[in-house]
């Protein structure tokens, strides 16, 4: 009897790229729901626009590259990239900017570098950076959480604002839009206000921006779910958040009136989302155990530096992109010691 010949091992553990991506999408649900709760339907529309654009873009590029698009689109990676980008965008951003960002992420940052696994930069963050630099006004025009403004953006309102411009909303627009807590803090500090005064504002909750802190908590929950399932390693989020807390804590200890309390850094912007879902993008991050700690920690430090002294209120995107460039070097210098190389026996 004849049999087919294949290479060992002959067993497969049943893991699949689709499963990995699917779990990450699942883990994003609590945080996404929280965002929707505080910022209304624009969040959902953004995700829909970005995802649709991403899938169409990926399909088109793969056809142009002469590859079968079905398997690649089915791996869910494009959906995930676009989803992450959408979460980082202001909920009522004009639709064409979201389309531009999502298409840029998939076509330029991902596929032109060779597709999944070959892109040196995090596509979602590169697209975010592109939009932030190109449309700084729109990109910093965030909504005020519903618990503050007293108005939750409805689906028709979000549709109007996104597809026909803010003018379509009239008075409501002014009521619901406002600076992000990070932006608020930045502006106030630049006007030489003390932290103790700034903290009087209603914008602040228990440990971060009101509403924002809860979004952060729900993303944290999703992130812990991913660690629990072994999809991501604890090292990058741990490195990033402890480094951010530590540096923020040092400056806070030096002068608590000009440097916000450390928890503010964690729960006011994209730090939690960034730590668990963006910095951990395996393709562009460091992969050695020690390297992941260093990579995460460096992102944390950069986030603090850019937030405190840089030109933009939030810094996760730039920090991640900067460290993407350093990841191969970090990996090279942090190779783990191989089995049998201990006690001075270098293989």
């Amino acid at each position, binding site marked *: *009897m004849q*049999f087919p010949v294949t*290479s060992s091992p002959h*067993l497969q*553990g049943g*893991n699949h790229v689709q499963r990995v991506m699917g779990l990450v999408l699942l883990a994003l649900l609590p945080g996404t729901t929280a965002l929707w709760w505080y910022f209304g339907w624009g969040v959902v529309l953004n995700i829909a626009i970005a995802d649709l654009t991403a899938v169409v873009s990926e399909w088109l590029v793969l056809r142009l590259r002469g590859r079968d698009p079905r398997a690649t689109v089915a791996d869910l990676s494009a959906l995930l990239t676009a989803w992450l980008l959408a979460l980082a965008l202001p909920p009522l951003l004009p639709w064409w900017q979201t389309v531009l960002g999502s298409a840029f992420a998939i076509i330029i940052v991902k596929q032109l570098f060779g597709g999944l*696994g070959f892109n040196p930069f995090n596509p979602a963050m590169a697209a975010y950076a592109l939009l932030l630099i190109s449309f700084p006004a729109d990109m910093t025009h965030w909504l005020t959480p519903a618990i503050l403004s007293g108005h939750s953006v409805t689906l028709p309102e979000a549709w109007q604002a996104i597809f026909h411009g803010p003018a379509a909303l009239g008075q409501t627009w002014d009521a619901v839009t406002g600076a992000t807590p990070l932006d608020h803090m930045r502006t106030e500090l630049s006007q030489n206000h003390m932290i103790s005064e700034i903290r009087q504002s209603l914008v602040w909750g228990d440990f971060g921006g009101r509403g924002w802190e809860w979004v952060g908590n729900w993303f944290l929950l999703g992130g812990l779910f991913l660690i629990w399932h072994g999809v991501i390693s604890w090292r990058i989020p741990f490195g990033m958040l402890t480094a951010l807390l530590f540096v923020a804590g040092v400056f806070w200890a030096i002068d608590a009136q000009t440097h916000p309390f450390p928890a503010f850094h964690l729960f006011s912007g994209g730090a939690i989302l960034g730590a668990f879902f963006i910095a951990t993008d395996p393709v562009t991050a460091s992969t050695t155990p020690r390297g992941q700690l260093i990579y995460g920690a460096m992102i944390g430090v950069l986030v603090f530096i850019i937030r405190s002294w840089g030109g933009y209120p939030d810094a996760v995107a730039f920090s991640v992109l900067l460290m993407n460039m350093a990841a191969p070097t970090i990996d090279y210098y942090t190779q783990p010691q191989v089995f049998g190389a201990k006690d001075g*026996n270098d293989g």
Partner: protein
Amino acid sequence: MPDGQQPLWDFHGGLHIDDHKAESAASPIRKIRLPERLQLPLQQHIGRSAEPMVKVGDRVLKGQLIARASDYVSANLHAPSSGTVSQIAELPIAHPSGLPAPCIVIETDGEDRWAEMPEPIADYREADPADLRERLRWAGIVGLGGAVFPTSVKTNTTGRTVDTLIINAAECEPYITCDDRLMREQPGDVIDGALILQHIVAAGRVLIGIEDNKPEAIAALQQEITQHQLDHFQLRVVPTKYPSGGEKQLIYLLTGIEVPSGGLPLDVGILCQNVATAATVADAVLHGRPLVTRIVTLTGRGVATPGNLRVPIGTPVAALVDEAGGYTAEAARLIMGGPMMGFALPDDGLPVTKGSNCFIVGGRDEIPDPQPASACIRCGECVRVCPAQLLPQQLYWYARARDFDKTQDQHLFDCIECGCCAYVCPAHIPLVHYYRFAKTEIWASERERQKSDHARRRHEFREARKRRLEEERKACLRKKKEALDKKGSAGNDPKKAEIAAAMKRVAAKKAAQQKEQERES
């Protein structure tokens, strides 16, 4: 566990996978009906191929030496049954390369008549270790765990100290149960073999490492150890985790010692032997029998009654399957060895060799076809499971790019090809395949380099010789010339003196004539 006071170490990574031992472990070892034809490859071991001692048409008896070790690292081969040599030719064998290799084929006569065998060495404790090693060498014993390295060579520890002999009874690969059955049914042989090996290498203590999924085997060995009051024997039960039976992994599990990267267990005073090898050693020394049969696990959903069989070396796999009630409708794949490190066979006509511990006839969903590979997303799952603590994703990257220097920077040769990385890979990349490719390429270029070095040395030597000869010739000429010159200046050559004198006379004559002419004018 019997040895609770000793700490156990745990190696990095590894897998907890379904062990599939139950299918074949329950029934006792059966003898197989003698096949009509035995095909014996001359190389079933690591080292040089054996040299045939018989011709086509020769009658051979069971246990008769039919091919002898051709080098120090080589192994004898004996007839597994009596019969006639019908063919000595290159035939397909069970080897990953799929290439044919020289084999001796015996048509058996059904009598299974033994040749005269050497005397048993009952009192091995008084025997010279060198004589015992010679007996193992005669018996053609090689490592039966799959490595097939000649045991007489491995146990030659002259000049080195061995404190610990480790008997590898882990049998960590799924499906395989031949060692388990051996320990349950012949624990005495295993212990005897271990004692003989211990005597040969003069080890102070013996550790037997066994996974905790073999309680019957553990009980049987423990009883044997207690009964014979072997205080220097320790049976150490390790948790079931693949690949705890890897030599370096087991050593670490039992002793906490890491064998240096690129080194041998002997470098840290340890020698490892497989349980089945130990039992065969006992057979050779205490009964004077060569290695002509082995226990083989035949399992998988593709065979009717999985189990363990005692099989003459050279038996075709198909004969084993017949013995087990034939194939089921599910039979779709044939694997020799375990599902993690074994290799697929194209054909069931291939013969059992000394290293064949298991054949799996896999069902379609049991041993599935490989899924199409997609791009590496650098998720690092492979890093988490690698027992050699390598970075499989980096190795893959460099192997794929044919950057073999970088693969060596990444310690390619510490890879034991256990397959854990490929097992967990979400992109289904055949990682081990890439590492084997890189290793083969490096070996090939190494050989190429050695060859060209050799050629270059030969060329340089030839050039140097030519130069030397030329110089010698020149020196010789110079000497002759010098000698001549010396003679000339000394004027002791009569002929030359004559010529010179004649020349002088001619010159004088000419001068006189000239003067005369001048005067006349």
